[in-house]
């Protein structure tokens, strides 16, 4: 299989313009003859569905929550990047492009990232026109902040609830199309299989989560905008329902899965408090603009602290190690996420961690409060401080927050070309579900940008180019390919229900998460990964022998829903390990202990690994086949990332 990224010819800055011109258009009167399925209505899916509807296509949109307004995008806090240069501080499309490529440790495609930076400016215009209440200055113009290590202020935000406001904007645009009858929304409906006919994506099989009914839907093209797979780790900042099922089942139908091991571990999350922990809560990275990260200088002080013999405010300034400021004087507390996370792990591994478990570091606002006053800090971060206090019962205005890294985002995902089409014709992937723009590490405030870029400004063009070449003929859901897929879904559900074993789904999920965290988390090595692969296989076998799923299919059955998702995580987890094992360099969030500089920084191997690893499914338990898409850098020079 040859992976053709379909990157247009020409100079970087002109590729997208030229491509838009070269693409075929569907005559306005003919758009209504085409049906598009959009699975997932987070930022990427809702923006795509709304725009397809506006253009005149017939859209069917699906989500598993009770309303599209609840997609996981709603939880994004910090902001969205755009190269508006409203602050006149030196930003430009090229700088946003450059920062994103470099931030991703040179493992993303130049052309995609450049396009992302280009359309970023349109996103802000669109959202404001919809009534998204971004933060503003007293003069009435939009406010910006610097975010996630960027040295310019290009992040637009709506207090600590940017994702909520952007999603409600996209939701409202989609609602308008629902009212016009151009979009039909199917909430509480989960995609369980992709249907291909003659090699083309022609529909999906879903389960109605209220009645259990298994149904098929056919269309001319299918878009998967189903989010990331961070919940492989059980504990993550993702919502409880976030899952890989749609993408994974498409993978099993032939779609390649790219860079599965590229996981982002976010440095500032509230630490685990007990065995019952069901998810981890992010404390927005914007906090690092004003908070200083530290641990005690010595193991002895840290030990006394953990035992409760001394309290944090007893530790003298001279006995604190502001390790990020010490090691990275240029970026200080604002180093990129992967660097901040790895350093937190390092100091905790040294025994200098705090909190009762020793798996936490401090994020201290005392100096900022002294400098700017409590009201100013409250105005910026009030809702985050409140959330922290609610969860931990501690007041962050009086004592530093305790934070620890947690799984947050998955850069890997379905392989797509420049048009966001997977290797299956007619199957597209958008938002966090694809692999395309963030390389080995995503910069803060770039996921919201990518989701909306894909949905509002890329797919509406590229999907037209595909549809314009297709006949109008619809495929009936009575086609044998649909019936076969339905039967397979029903059989799988029945199998899960019939096992009637002794261990719960969560039990298996937690066990998988532990393996992934220990061996495929912040630091990885060949030995650990090889061991993890065996452990995952054993666990998967046990799952299919011993899981307990109560109830029946023909009802609202949350245990069955989870069981399907965890069954897929148990397969995806192994592929993540395979990918991590294959990539023996370190890059971005993927840290192979065998490949580091003397200062413990990630060491890339550009000669051997400047490629996208796209994996082909060959059957559960069989070794997947690796396809490489070489990455070419014509506009940036590959350098060792340094934030010193």
């Amino acid at each position, binding site marked *: 299989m040859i992976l053709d990224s379909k990157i247009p010819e020409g100079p970087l800055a002109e590729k997208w313009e030229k491509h838009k011109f070269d693409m075929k258009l569907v005559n306005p009167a003919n758009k209504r003859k085409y049906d598009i399925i959009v699975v997932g209505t987070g930022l990427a899916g809702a923006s795509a569905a709304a725009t397809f509807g*506006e253009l005149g296509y017939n859209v069917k949109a699906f989500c598993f*929550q*009770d*309303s*599209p*307004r*609840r997609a*996981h995008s*709603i*939880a994004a806090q910090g902001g969205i990047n755009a190269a508006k240069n*409203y602050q006149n501080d030196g930003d430009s499309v090229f700088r946003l492009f450059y920062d994103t490529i470099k931030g991703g440790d040179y493992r993303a495609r130049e052309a995609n990232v450049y396009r992302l930076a280009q359309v970023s400016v*349109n996103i802000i*215009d*669109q959202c*404001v*026109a*919809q*009534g998204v*209440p971004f933060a*503003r*200055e*007293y*003069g*009435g*113009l*939009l406010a910006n902040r610097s975010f996630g290590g960027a040295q310019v202020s290009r992040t637009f935000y*709506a*207090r600590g609830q940017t994702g*909520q406001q952007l999603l409600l904007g996209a*939701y*409202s*645009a989609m*609602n*308008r199309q629902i009212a016009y009858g151009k979009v039909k929304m199917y909430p509480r409906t989960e995609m369980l299989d992709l249907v291909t006919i003659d090699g083309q994506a022609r529909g999906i099989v879903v389960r109605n989560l*209220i009645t259990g009914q298994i149904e098929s839907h056919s269309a001319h093209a299918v878009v998967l905008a189903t989010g990331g797979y961070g919940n492989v780790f059980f504990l993550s900042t993702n*919502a*409880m*329902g976030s899952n890989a099922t749609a993408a994974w089942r498409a993978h099993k139908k032939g779609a390649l899965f790219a860079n599965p091991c590229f996981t982002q571990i976010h440095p500032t999350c509230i630490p*685990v*408090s*007990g065995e*019952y922990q*069901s998810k981890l*809560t992010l404390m927005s990275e914007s906090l690092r603009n004003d908070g200083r990260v530290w641990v005690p200088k010595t193991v002895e002080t840290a030990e006394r602290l953990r035992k*409760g013999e001394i309290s944090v405010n007893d530790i003298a300034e001279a006995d604190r190690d502001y390790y990020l400021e010490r090691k990275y004087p240029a970026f200080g507390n604002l180093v990129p996420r992967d660097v901040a996370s790895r350093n937190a792990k390092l100091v905790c591994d040294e025994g200098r961690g705090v909190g*009762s478990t020793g798996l936490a570091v401090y994020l201290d606002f005392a100096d900022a409060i002294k400098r700017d006053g409590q009201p100013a800090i409250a105005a910026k971060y009030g809702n985050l401080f409140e*959330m922290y206090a*609610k*969860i931990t*019962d501690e007041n962050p205005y009086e004592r530093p927050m305790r934070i620890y890294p947690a799984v947050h985002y998955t850069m890997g995902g379905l392989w797509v070309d420049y048009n966001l089409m997977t290797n299956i014709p007619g199957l597209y992937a958008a938002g966090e579900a694809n692999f395309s723009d963030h390389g080995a590490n995503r910069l803060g405030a770039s996921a919201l940008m990518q989701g909306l870029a894909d949905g509002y*400004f890329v797919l*509406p063009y590229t999907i037209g180019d595909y549809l314009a070449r297709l006949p109008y003929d619809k495929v009936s859901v009575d086609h044998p390919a649909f019936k076969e897929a339905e039967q397979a879904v029903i059989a799988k559900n029945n199998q899960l229900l019939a096992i009637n074993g*002794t261990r*719960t789904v969560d039990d298996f999920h937690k066990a998988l998460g532990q393996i992934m965290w220990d061996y495929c988390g912040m630091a990885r090595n060949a030995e650990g990964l090889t061991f993890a692969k065996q452990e995952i296989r054993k666990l998967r076998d046990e799952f299919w022998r011993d899981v*307990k799923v*109560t*109830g029946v299919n023909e*009802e*609202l059955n*949350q245990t069955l829903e989870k069981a399907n998702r965890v069954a897929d995580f148990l397969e995806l987890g192994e592929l993540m390990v395979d990918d991590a094992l294959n990539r023996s360099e370190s890059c971005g969030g993927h840290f192979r202990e065998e490949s580091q500089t003397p200062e413990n920084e990630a060491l890339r191997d550009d000669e051997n690994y400047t490629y996208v690893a796209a994996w082909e499914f060959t059957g559960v338990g069989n070794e997947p086949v690796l396809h490489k898409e070489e990455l070419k850098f014509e506009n940036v020079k590959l350098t060792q990332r340094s934030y010193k």
Partner: protein
Amino acid sequence: MAGSNPNAKPMDLTLKVWRQKDRNSPGQMVTYPLKGISPDMSFLEMLDVLNEDLLRKGEEPIAFDHDCREGICGMCSLFINGRAHGPERGTTTCQLHMRHFSHGETITIEPWRAAAFPVHKDLIVDRSAFDRIQQAGGYVSVNTGGVPDANEIPIPKSIADKAFDAATCIGCGACVAACKNASAMLFVSAKVSQLAMLPQGKTERKTRAENMVAQMDIEGFGACTNTGACAAECPVGISLENIAMLNREYMGAKLTSENVAS
């Protein structure tokens, strides 16, 4: 592993939980004793613990809605000891922690009760009426592309901030559950005010108010009698001022609109 409070003692509790097979079956309260609950657990983690116990015994776990568990998606609900989202003000059920309950306490857990929110199963209700109200007019009619540069629409900060406050509604339905008339006025007013305050939303403000209120009535929500119970239980503090604004918007529309026959 203890959390923030290493001295917190585990609690024993009695839960009385609404169980209902599906929309058409009658439901009933069922009692479950529960031991060793950490005060640092969230309320939903406490239910997870109970559900794991039930599953191991081969019993059906209790169905409840939840997703983000961060207080922002609006998916969690639950009427706890007679209060929407439980005893803590300004808190969703998923952000409620067990430290607010005491050892030996009996806790009753029911679904939202409203004619417009029929029960799907146990504690899960159907809130699709809220989506239909938004579809009736909760948007600004702009297509993708062809919009002005964002900074060509300056908005005074005070107004932007107020619009933001209204825009933070998470669509949970607690206002309806808390209201003796099961009115959805707070929910509807939040969107109407947000868009009426902003220049982008002004063009359609009349039709928006009319259409959303009309849909609210069609869905079978009750009338607003200004008791304020909604705002008192709203987890994100949507203010009653929004209802006043909706009333003004609606009256204004009624008086001057060509869309209204009567």
